Structures are given as C-alpha cells and as structure tokens.
C-alpha cells in the first residue's frame, strides 16, 4: 500500500459538533398519480472533514435528500419538512438568496453524468470561473488563474489550453475531473458527490475515486458520497447510511456496517453481490421482489414484504409499526439484537465468503 493511512482511531465527536445535521427530513412530491413520499423521516449527521456514504438502490431517496440540502427542489411541486443545519444555519427555511450564497461556496455538488451536467454552450473555463467570481467577488483574471490551478490539480493536461475548450472536447473521465475542479473552486466545507463514477469505466472510476480521496485530504471538505455500489463506498467513506424506500435502515461506521451488518436489507445487498474473491460455486442470494412504489409504500417496515426474516418477529410488528433507528450505530429493524447477531453469524456470514 501507499504511505497513506486513515486516521480513524480518534473518537468521533458527539453531540452538536456535527457540521451538517439533518433531522426528520421529509420530502414529498406531488405528481399526477398522487403524492410521492420520496424521503420519509430521515436523520443523519456529517462531521467536518469526514465522508458519509449513502447507499441505496434507485428510488431509495438518496439523491432527493441531497438535492434538498442544496435547496434545489422545485418548491412548486415539492414539500420539504424537517431540519437541515449546516454549520448552525437552517437550510429548509432559508431564502433563495441565502442558499445561493452557500451553494458552490460552502457546499458544492458533483453530479453523476458530467456530459449532461456541464453546459455544452460555454467553455469549461468559464463554467469553472463563474462561481469563484460570484462568491469571492474577484476579477475574471483571478478566477481564470484559480481555474487553471484547479484543472491542473485534478490532472487535466495542458490546463491553460483546456481552459478554453468546451465539455464535449473532453473525454468522459476528464469531464468528471473538470466537474470536481468546479466543485472545489471555492474550497467548500461540504461536497456532495452523487454517484460521481457510475457513468465511468472501471479503470477511470478507480482514478477518480482516489483523486477525490486525495483531494479531500488536501481540502479537508466533508463529503457526502452517494452510490449504489457497496464496493465503491467501502473504499471511500468513514461512515455509512443505508437507505431503503426513503428511509434510513442502517447506520454506523463503514467497517461496522460492512463487517457486521444488522439489517436484513444490508444483508441482502451484500449477499446479492458477487465478489472477485468469492466462492464461484456459491449461488448469489438475491433479495426477492422489487423495491416498493413510493406512492403507496408498505406500512410498518418498508422492507417487510421482501424480508426473509419477518417471521422471526412476533405478531404483526413488521407490517404495522415503523422500526425506529436509534442514534449512533443502529439498524431500523424489529429483530432483537441477539436475533440479528445469530442470523448474521449462522446464515449471512457464510454466504459472504
């Protein structure tokens, strides 16, 4: 390995120290078919300089959550309730103007597909310079110097020349690098990366992931890293939040969640993924069924219709009571702690080897 080592031994600060704090977030969209409860009572914290991974499948609400942090939902079609505190500032009730001051400055976002997320009509340089000029009130020249410096930092060859190129003249990986450079222009305290490598090839993905990690060391930003890929997250994040159908189902440090997962959905995700070093004679164990519609989500635990262990819980608890997610290391499941441990050791762990 390299000489890089993660400093994880320091105890996590507790209480109000967290830099971003989301409390009981609810996001609803009104559509022609009815009200979509995209996010339903979500709470999490991100510490300064740390990476929180959010894992979930499509429709789990992971992207919706992060667009609400930035305040990018259309207020005409969406309702957002709850609390989002960024460094003590409340964002849900913040005005457009206040949010504009924060976006691209204190918090920045990297989107999934850099081809559609960068404007085809303006040069990469201009798109990079814009936020810097706006937030720092600097001249065009200063913004250009900064942009060239950032392009170089993210590994774009000949940054002075490429400054004047358009996004379509960049290759896919280079475009995502430019996107990262753009997000880092104002040295944000919070960086939200929404599936930043999903559209990329695997060798390019590896470059970009390492780049993000190294840049985080240098810039000290907190990162919310959204992905559907547990492999990606295990290399990137300090803490992990597993989402299912608009709710958080499990939370903990990456090591805790991936080493001793406690929620049946996390078990399902892990055992449905083939590994490069797994046993080839072992069949994959998929999660039966498909994710629910958020127009009419199942009552109680939203995962219960697909859960293989709901019979182990007495009565109709799973189908009528929402399992709470405690603070800290926790899983939102009605199984008792002993049950979780026994099931994991007896039934799940053998599949993962």
């Amino acid at each position, binding site marked *: 390995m390299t000489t890089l080592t993660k400093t994880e031994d320091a105890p996590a600060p507790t209480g109000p120290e967290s830099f971003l704090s989301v409390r009981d977030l609810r996001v609803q969209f009104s559509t022609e078919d009815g009200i979509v409860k995209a996010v339903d009572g979500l709470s999490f914290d991100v510490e300064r300089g740390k990476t929180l991974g959010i894992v979930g499948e499509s429709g789990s609400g992971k992207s919706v959550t992060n667009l609400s942090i930035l305040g990018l939902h259309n207020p005409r079609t969406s309702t957002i309730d709850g609390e989002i505190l960024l460094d003590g500032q409340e964002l849900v009730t913040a005005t457009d103007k206040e949010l504009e001051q924060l*976006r691209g400055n204190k918090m920045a976002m990297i989107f999934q597909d850099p081809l559609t997320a*960068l404007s085809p*009509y303006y040069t990469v340089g201009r798109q990079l310079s814009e936020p810097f000029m706006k937030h720092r009130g600097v001249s065009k020249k200063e913004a250009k110097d900064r942009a060239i410096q950032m392009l170089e930092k993210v590994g774009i060859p000949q940054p002075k020349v490429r400054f004047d190129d358009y996004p379509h003249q960049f290759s896919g990986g280079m475009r995502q690098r430019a996107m990262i450079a753009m997000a880092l222009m104002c040295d944000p305290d919070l960086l939200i990366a929404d599936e930043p490598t999903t559209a990329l090839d695997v060798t390019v993905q590896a470059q970009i992931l390492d780049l993000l990690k190294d840049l985080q060391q240098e810039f000290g930003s907190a990162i919310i890293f959204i992905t559907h890929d547990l492999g990606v997250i295990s290399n990137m994040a300090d803490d992990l939040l597993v989402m299912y159908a608009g709710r958080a189902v499990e939370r903990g440090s990456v090591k805790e969640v991936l080493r001793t997962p406690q929620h049946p959905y996390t078990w399902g995700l892990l055992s449905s993924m083939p590994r490069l070093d797994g046993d080839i004679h072992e069949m994959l164990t998929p999660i039966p069924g498909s994710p629910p519609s958020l127009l009419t989500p199942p009552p109680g635990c939203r995962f219960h219709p697909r859960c293989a262990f709901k019979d182990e819980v007495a009565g109709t608890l799973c189908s009528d009571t929402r399992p709470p997610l405690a603070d800290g290391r926790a899983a939102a499941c009605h199984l008792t702690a002993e049950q979780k441990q026994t099931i994991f050791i007896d039934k799940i762990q053998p599949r993962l080897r």
Partner: protein
Amino acid sequence: MLQFIIRRLAGAVVTLFLIGAVTFFLFIAGPSDYASLACGRDCSPTRIADIREALGLNLPVATQFWQFMSGIVMGRDFPDGHCAAPCLGQSFYSGDMVWDTIIDRFPTTLTLTVGGTICFLIFGVGAGMVSAFRRGSTLDKVATGSSMVLSSFQIYFLGPIALTVLVYSTGWMEDPKYVPISEDPVGWFVGMSIPVVVMATIFTAQYTRMARASMIEQLAEEHVRTARAKGMTKKYVFFRYAWRGSLIPIVTVLGIDISSMLGGAVVTELTFSLQGIGRLAVNGAMTRDLPLTMGVMMFGAFFILIVNILTDIAYAWIDPRVRLS
C-alpha cells in the same frame, strides 16, 4: 466554418438547378399546349404556329431548358428586347420580364416578412420566456391562455376584423397599401402596419407557446441544475444557461417561417389586397404562365436555401458542438 459555407452554397446552386429542371419539365410535360392557350378561341393553326415560334416552343425541350437556365446566368435576347441577367424569362401573358415583375413586387413581401418577424420575435419569444420564468404565475396563465386562443385564429379571420374596426367603421386608418419606403417612409409605415401587425399577432401566439415550452424543457436540463448548484441566481441561470438551448427549436421554426414568407404570404396579401410575391405565384400557376411560375418558384427556392444556410450558421453560433465537430 468557411469551408462549410462554401460547401453549402455549392449545394444550393445544384439544388436551384434541380428545382428549375423539375418545374420546367413538369410544365412542358403537362397536358396543356401553351400556344393554343395563349391564342385563345377561334385560333388558326398558322397563328398557333406563329405563337409557338415566338415563345420558342417549337425548339427541342433541352434547348428551351438550356436557354432558360443560361439566361439566369448570362441574360438572353428575346425578339422584343434584351433581358439582362438574372433573366428569368418573359411572361407569356403580360410580356413583361419576369425578373422585373418580381423585383417590383418584392418590397411588399419583404416589408411583411421583416416587419412581421421583428414583431413576433420581440413579443412572441419575449412573452414565452417571461411565461417560462414566471411559470404558474398569473402572467403566465394570461400569456398561455391568450396565445392559445390567438394561435387558433387565421389571418383571413383576424384581417377583416381589423380592417372593419380600424378602417371601415371608424375611419381611423386608410386601407392598407404599399408605398415605397424611399418615397414616403411614414406612408410606408402606416400603409403596411395593419397587415404586418395582424400577421405578426398570429405568429406571436405560436412563438409564445413554442418559446415557453422550449424554455421549460431547457430549465429541466441537468446542466441548468448544475449552474444553480454553483450558486448562480435563477435569473442568471435562466438567461445564460437555459436561454441558449431554447433557441435551437426557435431558430429551426423561424427559418422555415421566414423562407416561406419570403416566397410569398399569399393569404395575407389576398386579405389585404397587397401585390406581393405570393399573389404573383398564384397568378402564374392559375394562368399556366410557365416563365412567371418558374421565376417565382426559383426566387422562393433561392430564399429557402439561403435561409437554410443561415439557420445552420445560427446553430453553429448557438451550439459549439456543431461548430467544433
């Protein structure tokens, strides 16, 4: 870019030639005999032969076509005088040179086209953009509603109403007419204002709807969201990021509309009794006046081709992906 324009111009010349050929052979191959048509009833065979001779119809078809096409480039001589290039021939009926007739009528058409376009671009695209920016507001509802109603009207409906209200019953204005701008700019403006405004009204309604729809589509683009995520204001994002992309469908339709208007706005001209290119084309076709029809056709085709090239240049200006590929 220059190479592109040269290539397109070369293509345009070939296309014009083909259009000429198709028009020509369709007429020649048609069932009517021009000589007997021109001669009228009670016509003696000798007279028909004379007319054939005079119109050059006795020559082989290929020769006739060659004479016509070469006349455009080099001019040609007719029994009753020289026709300078670009010579589009001599009308069978009036005996006037087709080019002169077209040039005589063109200012009317040009006034309608340019005046109308300026009006509907400013009001139509403007209203559409504001509507999209303030989506869901009262302003938006009014704009969408009225454009919906107006765009279902036609010039031959709206025109007479305007004439009745403004001219016949109140006498506020005079009947529309074309006065050359060089002679009397005020008269030109006043004389053409009713047709231009009526025509532009209907286009304005269409362009409002189109601009609004295309703007809303652009606002949903991911790169527009990225710009918002960078902290750019709604207004900035709207007029810098979304605006450009929304131009593409507008330019496309605008190109089609302008070139068809330059080829003659028949309904408008008829409604307001104006003598434009459109009327000329209709007359030529109805009287089977081959040189006139061909002339107007090729004149119109010329503008279609030029406007097409301009449209492509506009695309390249709007979208660097077109420019740099």
